[in-house]
């Protein structure tokens, strides 16, 4: 039997109610021991019951408790939901009590995983539900909803059927070599088709990265020498545009220092804790670590002093960020201009709050966030999808190479099939009899 798990189902923050969800075979019996209302073991399924949570003679909170018995629940297991008061303390305390009573805290996504394993939902849906649960902003919720409605599914399905058509044609050429009237897939023809696939995949990938931006936010790294004004910029961005919700689990959790929202998109400021006040960033944190931070960032804001010439270190950083999205903010524009720089820069003065709006505008411009396209054309929003899409694109690129080397088409079809199957992983579909059915529905063959 699976053990019983619990987790906060609402976002810990400033809402007036928190919901703690408990799933598993012991959910009802254990909660009933700390609930003062009706005997939860005897109430009907799908009812809400008023009472108190009481532990060791101490009343913790006044609550409403929903009881939903298997199998008509999200996880197909018994589920209890405790609606307690908002704020941090009450929920935290109840979860601690549940933990002591052998209900462990769920791993990230564990409810959805159970729903999936118990046959409640399919793979794409489970991911989309997860995204709805964890969505941070309204825009993101729209993306997640779109995915749940299957626009990701459709897009991938369309691309797969295009690939399948080519594969079937290749198979027909192999299995019926003497049927000269059928279209023969030559290297030239394949090259053209592969190009189309590449374009489409690139587009889906771009849109999915947009989706990822909506979901995970944009990682911003602030770089610059000490006393150049980084903290002022940081404070300004965070204070004026403070994220409503707190941090969300993700790969960047450990290094995010703070978040702010512009045009519905979350920006995460990467934590460069401990390096703000050192004299030589690159030296102190080491080349590798600084590169690592630069890699994690989606965009880098380099702050420079108008009054100083570029030194070796500045040039070093400028060189390193050349290939990445970056904004150069030249601070202290009230002082004499000594800096010479041949790149596009934003001038400002943090003390006078000058240029900070231009900086924000620049952030929006770089990611094209004022254009609503990003919200309309993003349907993918998780790392697994992006990894698979990148893998598929890699396969397509390698096929391009095989075509130029005139590797036999039937060998290339191995890669094509790999790409087809990879895309199928996104929507949880396997290969099975697709090919045979395609061949005989599209081609006229046989003795």
């Amino acid at each position, binding site marked *: 039997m699976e053990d019983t798990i619990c987790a906060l189902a609402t976002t810990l923050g400033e809402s007036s109610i928190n919901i703690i969800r408990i799933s598993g075979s012991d959910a009802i019996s254990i909660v009933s021991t700390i609930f003062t209302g009706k005997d939860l073991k005897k109430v009907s399924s799908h009812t809400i019951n008023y009472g108190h949570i009481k532990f060791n003679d101490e009343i913790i909170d006044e609550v409403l408790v929903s009881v939903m018995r298997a199998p008509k629940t999200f996880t*197909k297991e018994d589920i209890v939901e405790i609606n307690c008061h908002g704020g941090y303390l009450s929920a935290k305390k109840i979860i601690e009590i549940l933990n002591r009573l052998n209900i462990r805290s769920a791993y990230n996504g564990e409810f959805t995983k159970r729903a*999936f*394993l*118990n*046959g409640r939902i*399919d*793979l794409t849906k489970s991911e989309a539900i997860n995204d709805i649960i964890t969505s941070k902003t309204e825009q993101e919720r729209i993306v997640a909803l779109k995915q749940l409605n299957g626009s990701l599914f459709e897009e991938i399905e369309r691309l797969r059927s295009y690939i399948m058509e080519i594969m079937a044609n290749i*198979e027909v*050429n*192999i*299995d*019926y*070599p*003497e*049927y*000269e*009237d059928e279209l023969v897939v030559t290297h030239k023809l394949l090259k053209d088709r592969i190009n189309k696939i590449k374009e489409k995949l690139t587009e889906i990938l771009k849109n999915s990265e947009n989706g990822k931006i909506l979901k995970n936010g944009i990682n911003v790294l602030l770089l610059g020498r000490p006393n150049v004004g980084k903290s002022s910029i940081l404070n300004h961005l965070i204070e004026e545009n403070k994220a409503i919700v707190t941090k969300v689990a993700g790969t960047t959790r450990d290094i995010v220092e703070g978040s702010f929202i512009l045009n519905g998109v979350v920006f995460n400021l990467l934590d460069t804790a401990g390096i703000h006040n050192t004299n030589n960033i690159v030296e102190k944190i080491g080349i590798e670590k600084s590169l690592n931070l630069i890699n994690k960032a989606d965009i880098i804001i380099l702050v420079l002093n108008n009054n100083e010439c570029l030194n070796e270190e500045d040039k070093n950083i400028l060189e390193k960020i050349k290939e990445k999205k970056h904004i150069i903010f030249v601070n202290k524009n009230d002082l004499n201009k000594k800096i010479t720089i041949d790149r596009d820069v934003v001038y400002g003065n943090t003390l006078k709050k000058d240029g900070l709006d231009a900086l924000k505008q620049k952030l929006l411009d770089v990611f094209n966030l004022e254009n609503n396209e990003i919200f309309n054309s993003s349907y993918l929003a998780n790392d697994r999808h992006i990894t698979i899409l990148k893998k598929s694109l890699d396969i397509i690129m390698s096929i391009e190479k095989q075509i130029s*080397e*005139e*590797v*036999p*088409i*039937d*060998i290339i079809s*191995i890669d094509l099939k790999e790409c087809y199957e990879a895309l199928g992983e996104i929507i*949880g579909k*396997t*290969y*099975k*009899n697709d*090919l*045979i059915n395609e*061949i*005989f529905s599209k081609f*006229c*063959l*046989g*003795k």
Partner: protein
Amino acid sequence: MNYDVIVVGAGHAGCEAAYATSKLGKKTLLITINMNNIADMPCNPSIGGTAKGIVVREIDALGGLMGKVADKSHFQIKMLNNAKGPAVRSLRAQADKKIYPKVMLEYLTKEKNLTIKEGIVSNLIVENNYVKGVILENKEEYYSKVVILTTGTYLKSNILIGSTKKQEGPHGEKTSLFLSKNLKDLGFNIQRLKTGTPPRIKKDSIEFSKMQEEDGDRKLYTFSFDLEPSYKIDNQEKCYLLYTNENTHNIIKNNLDKSSMYGGFVEGIGPRYCPSIEDKIVRFSDKKRHQLFLEPESKYYDEWYLQGFSTSMPTFIQEQMVHSLKGLEKAKITKYAYAIEYDAIDPLQINNNLETKIINNLFTAGQINGTSGYEEAAAQGLIAGINASLKLDKKNPLVLKRSEAYIGVLIDDLITKGTNEPYRLLTSRAEFRLILRHDNADLRLRKIGYKVGLINEQQYQKVLKKEQDINNLLIYLKNNTTENINKKINSKSGKNSLYQVLKRPEINIYELIPNDLYENDVIEQVSLYVKYEGYINKMLKEVEKLNKLEKKQIPSDIDYDNVLNLASEAREKLKKIRPSTIAQASRISGVNPTDISILAIYLKKEYNK
């Protein structure tokens, strides 16, 4: 009379089965409706073709007969897909319909343990779910420990031409009227299948000059790994290519209701890959023409086979249709095209050793299992024969994997997916086709044939030597550089091993190796391996992954009703097919990845405690 094995039907499956059991020392009785129709080719006059040609080589590698008989009886042979990659090449021979059965009979009559007898089986003798023998229509009884049914299209067959329907087998032969009822009573699900054959044309009424010639290859080939070519390149017969035209299409469209298929006279389901000409014209109405071939049936009579023109139109329409073709305006039809419908069992009711799940020691092979094609039949016959013999010897069955042979793909497809149309092998059905090539069938399967006992010591040593030579040549390529071998090749790569150099697309292996030290097929194997190593290794990794799943056995006593949360379609399928491994389960249509993970979790919980 008592036998170890009785084989019912002497077509391509029956001949291989009976040969295998008698060769393996089992006293065997082969029963046929007509002695003159042993190894008959009632449809196309060819052996092999894409995928099928590879199967013929696999049969030969395991010790079966088809390849050798075809080598001794064809009058034209071709390597199909020669211009494509190595994985999809395949031999096809135009076999002489008169000679092929004769050569097969010669092989069979050499077997001391084999008796051939004419008769029609009406019933099986079954006691406690074990088959004990057969009863003929004339009431004679024959007893045996094992029965192999290879009844072809003869179970309750009907021949259909237009609106006429006759209870007959192919070319007017008697049909088996009672056996399928007996099988049904025993618990088999009987399905009705349909296939067809085109008209035959008298040679001297054909104007060949109006058609395009199709020659055999200018290179000598054999299917068999044991025989040298016994034909001369210049003595091959020609085939001819011709096309249907608008007129042909109009005749067919205007008379559709008269055909057996479209007039509603046929119950059986026909194969998608072998459609009648009326099917082609209805389903692909935008096509202006369809390709047809004229192929001689034999050097010893003058009938030609009109490939691509199978139909169930009445004879007077067939006349009009044939006469509409260019070069056949004055053609004389010697045999009219017909559709044939027949009974087959549901292959989901047989195990992976081709023994039925319903009756112990009863094996089935060929068209009775829902397949189509001489080669598919022969392959199953051979495996059924081998497994019948292994069972009598109380040994483990021979189950070829999908990664080992096309034959493995064929049988796994049948018993896992079932079929509701006559099943034909295609290269696209084999996911590992790059390693299932025609050229390495001996390397893949001879050792298995040797272990089973159909391959002798000398044949076995030959394949061991080939393996050794391949290894030696690979070592040579790894240990030498162009510097000491061939200085003409790009000096930049002087330091690279020949092995590395050979990977370059423009390099031919013959530039890199000493003359006359290795056989051509050894050189070809090595070249192929080095050039496609990346793909081959990728495929081998897939195979390894699959083999891991194949090792995950599903206990035979599993009760799928206890596995909670399976989708109901998946549950039904699993209950019916009862797959033996997780891998097999995952290939069943309607069983989704979610079902597989649920099943895997269940197995872990219930059986791995």
